């Protein structure tokens, strides 16, 4: 599976309700015991919000400005959510299915390093 196939794939909850699209993958270094590779594993997904908000880095607040771009992207940035990999029931091929248990997903900004 290519990472870019996952990007922009629709995300739904266990009842098939849409949660937006995958806009970014959060990756973390794998612990050494998982083989010789110092590679990464997918830790979670960034879901929801606008495509550009993620592409331009505002969804994870990489930038504080300029003021105008921050204003334009502010609302969409707040909508971005984080889905931990453990909650993913199926990664594809058509949709990413996620277990929410009826609860709200955490905002992306809460789990991103400032």
């Amino acid at each position, binding site marked *: 599976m290519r990472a*870019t*196939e996952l*990007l*922009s*794939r629709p995300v739904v909850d266990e009842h098939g309700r849409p949660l937006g699209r995958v806009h970014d993958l959060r990756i973390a270094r794998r612990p050494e015991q998982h083989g010789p590779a110092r590679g990464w594993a997918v830790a979670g997904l960034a879901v929801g919000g606008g*495509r550009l908000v993620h*592409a331009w880095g505002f969804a994870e607040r990489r930038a504080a400005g300029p003021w105008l771009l921050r204003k334009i992207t502010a609302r969409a940035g707040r909508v971005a959510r984080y889905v931990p990999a453990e909650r993913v029931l199926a990664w594809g091929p058509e949709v990413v299915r996620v277990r929410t248990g009826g609860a709200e997903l955490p905002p992306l900004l809460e789990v991103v390093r400032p």
Partner: protein
Amino acid sequence: MTTTHMGAGTGVRWVAVSAAVFAVVMASLWFGHAPPRSAAAYARQGAETVGYLRSQTRTARLWVDAVASGSATHQAASVALREAEDDASATAARFAGWDPPAGSDAVRATVTALGDEVTRRLAELRIAANRGRWADLPGVARPLPDLAERLGAVADELTAASRS
């Protein structure tokens, strides 16, 4: 990252977009190169043409002055005089290539006659320069200011005619 899920509509959309772009380009080309169709548009083009002829005449005159006063080299002046002549004949030929709308024959006669005259005068300058007759150049150029005045007057007339 945009196109991973575009599916079957992609091909159709591409064709539609390409066709639209092509249509706009063709329309623009037509707009840019369509000949003048009304008498007013023809007169306006005539004024424009005569304005350029005047510009080329005066440019040539400036180069003659510059070379006569020792301000410009012979090489540069002979290149510039040839350019002025080439421009003038291209300007005149472009206008002559358009069919005059009904009632515009007089405009055509005036403008093409001026085009011929300017081209002829500038050719004389170019020939004198290429023969190295630099001392004669101011003499050959003597009619130019007069000619430029006449061109200016005709341009004003045609502009007025295009507005009425």
